[in-house]
């Protein structure tokens, strides 16, 4: 096992694990919604994109739908307020927090609309119908997001540390991005708080009741709609966090919504209903695809195996354990 002493091995491994954390952040949103409503939310990635676009828009003081308004009225409006702070620098903290709060409010409002318009009329439909409805939702959100804030690639800078970490370079000689470490920390905080929320609060108990059995939950007086609204709001906030992290790392652009697809194999590995599973799955996928590409993909297969490795790994895994690592055992009855 010569490669275990190879410094590259650890560098690739750590890069993979940290990239995996990013996948996990998206996968978390999926798990939340799947647990409580049995809906496989394909729009989670677009939700992250939408949240990031909205945050960038608020931070720049961009006028929503400026493009459409200018076209209709023949005006040249772009901004509705000038953001505080010096241009080109990180804006002051209070402003960043305000913008995040406003974006959160938008996500909560969006969750309400989604529950009202999409989910409520589809109560009791099969999972696959709901899944396809969320594909439709993803398209609508993508179009609306682009119309609202413009389709160009945007920079998102809210003052998170960026660049390689000097401390780690000095200590071990490895190149690790600071932003990825922050993402890992944020993910840990997020998972801890979500677990606490679902285990120890009344609301969390209601969520778990709904996840267990819709009808039984309804019969003891839990309002399905409220629960769904809360869940979609929480998923929206998780999407915002994912959007911030991805946006800070590689800019806010359409490809953000494609990471939703990468989150699918993560979910398969971790199981659709397990929050820790989403994290572990993300780490396995992230590390696996980086290592595979480094040791097998680039030397033997011509590279770019990251495109498919996650899916093939998930596929191989499924054949042996269809419910995922931490998922509940699937029992079927006629």
């Amino acid at each position, binding site marked *: 096992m010569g490669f275990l002493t190879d410094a590259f091995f650890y560098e690739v491994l750590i890069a993979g694990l940290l990239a995996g954390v990013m996948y996990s952040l998206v996968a978390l949103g999926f798990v939340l919604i799947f647990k409580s409503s049995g809906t496989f939310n394909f729009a989670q990635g677009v939700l992250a994109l939408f949240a990031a676009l909205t945050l960038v828009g608020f931070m720049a003081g961009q006028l929503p739908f400026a493009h459409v308004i200018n076209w209709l009225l023949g005006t040249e409006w772009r901004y509705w307020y000038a953001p505080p702070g010096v241009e080109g620098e990180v804006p002051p903290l209070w402003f960043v927090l305000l913008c995040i709060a406003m974006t959160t409010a938008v996500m909560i409002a969006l969750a309400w609309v989604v529950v009202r318009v999409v989910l409520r009329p589809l109560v009791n439909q099969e999972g696959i119908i709901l899944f396809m409805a969320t*594909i439709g*939702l993803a398209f*609508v959100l993508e*179009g609306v997001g682009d119309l609202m804030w413009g389709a160009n690639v945007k920079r998102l800078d809210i003052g998170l540390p960026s660049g390689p970490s000097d401390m780690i370079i000095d200590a071990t000689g490895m190149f690790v991005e600071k932003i990825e470490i922050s993402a890992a920390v944020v993910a840990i905080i997020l998972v801890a708080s979500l677990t606490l929320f679902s285990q120890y609060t009344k609301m969390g108990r209601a969520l778990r009741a709904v996840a267990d059995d819709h009808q039984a939950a309804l019969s003891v007086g839990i309002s399905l709609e409220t629960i769904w609204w809360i869940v979609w709001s929480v998923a929206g906030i998780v999407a915002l966090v994912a959007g911030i992290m991805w946006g800070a790392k590689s800019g806010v652009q359409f490809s953000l919504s494609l990471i939703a697809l990468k989150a699918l*194999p993560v979910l398969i590995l971790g199981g659709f209903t397990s929050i820790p599973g989403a994290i572990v799955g993300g780490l396995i996928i992230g590390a696996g695809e980086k290592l595979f590409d480094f040791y097998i993909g680039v030397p033997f297969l011509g590279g*770019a195996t990251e495109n498919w490795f996650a899916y093939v790994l998930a*596929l191989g895994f*499924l054949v042996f354990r269809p419910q995922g690592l931490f998922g509940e055992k699937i029992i079927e009855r006629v």
Partner: protein
Amino acid sequence: MLYREAGEFKTSYQADLATFPIRIELWGFWSVMAVAVLVVPFFVNDYWEQAIFLPFFVYGLAALGLNILTGYCGQLSLGTGGFMAVGAYATYKLMTSFPGLDMISITLLSGLITAGVGVFFGLPSLRIKGFYLAVATLAAQFFLIWMFNKWGWFYNYSASGQISAPERTMFGLAITGPYTHPAVTYLFCFGFLFVFAWVARNLVRGRVGRSWMAIRDMDIAAEIIGVNPLMSKLSAFAVSSFYIGMSGALYFAVWKGAAEGTEAFSITVSFNVLFMIIIGGLGSIFGSLIGAAFIVLLPVVFKNVFVGALGWPTDIATHAQIILLGGLIIGFLIAEPHGIAALWRTAKEKLRLWPFPH
């Protein structure tokens, strides 16, 4: 007033089970076909061929294939783009390796090759189902596209990584290549769609089709009453991939003439075909075709009406089109989960009784 079964008496089961049970419907169908074969080829020009008819025939075949798998057998697939790529690259390799083969055999052979690949990627469906299977088919999508891009053998090591169709003729008429006549390609693709829509229609109401539907409705119950899930699922994968492979072959060789794996057969194609069968109607042959027509026409209409006639800026029209598409999907799932085909059926029921309410 016209749509009535009054005065038509069926004397055999065969007549009762006909696809078009009412005479006027049958006549309507054949007159549309007659117009399509005898009239349209004389008027079709390059624009109509390239923008409307060939896309409709090609995507119609793909939608038929996906509908067999997803609508009839209940196995959700997001790998349509990948399987179309298999068909396209198989066609390319066959065309370049066996210059003597005619295009009909090549298309059929490409379909068969794709069917083999489809069965391979369908194997996991015996263990997993639903969304899990959807992810498994994503593996097919991404792996196949990557393979066609990276392995030079598939594109004959051409410098651009593109594949382009050499010229092939049948009965002295060019079917592929730069010198085709719109009417020839139109009839060629129309023939494929017609024959295979007919095959599909008869497959799904026969023994195989019923076993697919039993698996779709409840696989465990189906297994208990004696439907073999292995055979049903794999045959659905095989037939579906056969159709999708032929569609990929026609897409590459006849319609576009050239293709580049990542662009032409990306995940977007998979979604588009999925939308076709959702909007058209899951589990309906007519629905697959009407859905394909709808998705093919939507951008054309949008471009002509909103950009061309009303003068909308192109980018706003593009976004509006995406929003409309998504909204339509949600709307259809809410209002009529079985798509336009079900609306059509309801309309026919109403029409039979019109103007009386009962």
